[in-house]
């Protein structure tokens, strides 16, 4: 088959909602886009363990400590599925980790903000995981099979996390004045970064067209962002808290909430490395990786010794 035929064949499958599998032919650009997107998502899960991990040792009750640890562990699990999905496209996990550590690969900028109080654990679950799910649910039907299957598992757990986060904020919002203040402060700090998680406005977004065509992406940034705002603007009422946006207002005509202007300068600043914790996060990941080198080497050396011994015994 000529490349054109292959491409047509491929696009027909995509259009017919048939999943593309690792051994199937696919355009180079499709493969590249997927590797970039899946590995970026995997890195986000791994780096995302750090801000929440920051409160494990200080969780205020045994139950909350369990919930938090289990949640962070789930993120490690997501990282694992996603690295595996990306590996089916012909890149190794070590290569991807190397790209993360060198700064070549990105991860979600949201994790470059610090977790300052316990209420941040709830706010991350509710807002950050909430935004992530908005982005991710459509990916359960994404055209690449292994990615789609990984996302189904991820989404199931993420929506559990979101409910847990909201429940945790609900408890705090029914608590002491200090706890209520903590919740409002956390919402104030996480709200704008959360709605920036949907990326630039459609007009400024690159790559969107091809991704749409290949069904890697199914909705535009602005569509998803609007859904998120609509959802959170309602839920925040249950907490008896407010979102830090004076322009937030129900628009009867649109059937949506209007909301204020996003500070894109901050967004690009954080993306380009200048968030409050960019260096801290990457340093922490690199440190864990470097300090684990001798462990990985020992495990490898031992495994090789075993194989050798078994061979010798067999001989």
């Amino acid at each position, binding site marked *: 088959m000529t490349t054109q035929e292959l491409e047509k064949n491929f696009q027909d499958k995509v259009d017919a909602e048939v999943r593309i599998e690792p051994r199937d032919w696919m355009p180079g650009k499709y493969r590249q886009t997927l590797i970039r997107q899946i590995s970026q998502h995997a890195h986000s899960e791994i780096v995302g363990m750090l801000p929440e991990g920051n409160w494990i040792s200080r969780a205020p009750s*045994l139950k909350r400590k369990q919930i938090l640890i289990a949640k962070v562990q789930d993120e*490690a699990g997501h990282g694992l599925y996603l690295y595996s999905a990306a590996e089916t496209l012909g890149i190794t996990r070590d290569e991807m980790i190397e790209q993360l550590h060198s700064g070549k690969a990105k991860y979600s900028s949201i994790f470059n903000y610090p977790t300052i109080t*316990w209420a941040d654990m709830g706010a991350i679950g509710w807002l950050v995981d909430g935004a992530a799910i908005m982005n991710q649910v459509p990916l359960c039907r994404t055209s690449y099979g292994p990615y789609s299957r990984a996302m189904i598992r991820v989404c199931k757990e993420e929506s559990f996390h979101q409910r847990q986060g909201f429940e*945790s904020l609900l408890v705090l919002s029914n608590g002491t004045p200090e706890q209520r203040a903590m919740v409002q402060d956390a919402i104030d700090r996480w709200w704008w970064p959360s709605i920036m998680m949907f990326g630039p406005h459609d007009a400024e977004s690159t790559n969107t067209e091809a991704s749409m065509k290949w069904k890697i992406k199914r909705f535009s940034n602005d569509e998803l962002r609007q859904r998120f705002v609509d959802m959170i603007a309602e839920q925040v009422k249950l907490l008896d808290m407010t979102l830090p946006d004076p322009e937030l207002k129900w628009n009867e005509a649109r059937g949506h909430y209007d909301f204020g202007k996003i500070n894109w300068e901050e967004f690009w600043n954080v993306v380009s490395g200048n968030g409050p914790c960019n260096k801290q996060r990457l340093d*922490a990941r690199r440190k864990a990786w470097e300090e684990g080198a001798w462990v990985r080497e020992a495990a490898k050396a031992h495994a090789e010794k075993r194989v050798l011994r078994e061979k010798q015994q067999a001989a």
Partner: protein
Amino acid sequence: MPTTELFLYTLQLADSTLLMGQRHSEWTGHGPVLEQDIAITNIALDYLGQSRNLYQYAASLYNNAPETEKAAMDKYIPRLWKSFQRELQEDDLAFLREEHQFLNVLLTELPRGDWAFTVLKEFFYSAFLMNLYQDLLHSTDNQLAAIGEKSVKEVSYHLRWSSEWVIRLGDGTEESNTRLNNALADIWMFTGELFVPAAYEQIVVQQGVIKDPQLYKEPWQEKVRTIFQQALLDVPTPSWMQHGGKEGRHTEHMGYLLAEMQQLQRTYPNATW
């Protein structure tokens, strides 16, 4: 039957398992490889679950004790709790007791250390707990028996996992072997305390609720010998052992651990989280 000693014994196990969980969870997000990050976190979660069961039981022992017994237990109850005017709860015990009221074995409060330190500590402690929980299954105390039954499978996995890691590091590279030996030099003196019953523990033994922990020494040593042989490690000769944790005398590490772990409850006492 007086419950003060049973209460203290239960606290001792609760505190020890809590601190195992607390220290292990310092690895979460920082493990040497993703699969092992998940594994050590799993173990941390198991320990936390065990400690919650034990604290809940300890709290119920206190809440249901006659006033005369309560007076004896009060030395180990957070002073602050009295002002809350409600029943004692698991979190009061974990987050509001003072250092000298904690009864965990010293082994469990030692700083996380490197991977060799962690897996060796886990191996020593789970090899001990394995024997303990297997007997607890048959305890005359129904609650402890239930906790033992629930926990023995978990610990059996911990023991297998940590044994494999001890072997892997001991018989891995020169560096991993050296690190494991360094860890051994740091930890060994804290293993003796596991088998020496505290005064209250002796009474619980006499009551027939638990077996004398001295009985676990022999099988524990046997397990250590077996694994160390595969790990190319020498079992240290009998030497002087640290003690005091079971009586509330801790190492200098303990204060820092508690300051961090208890901070929120200390700052906002009796809040709901």
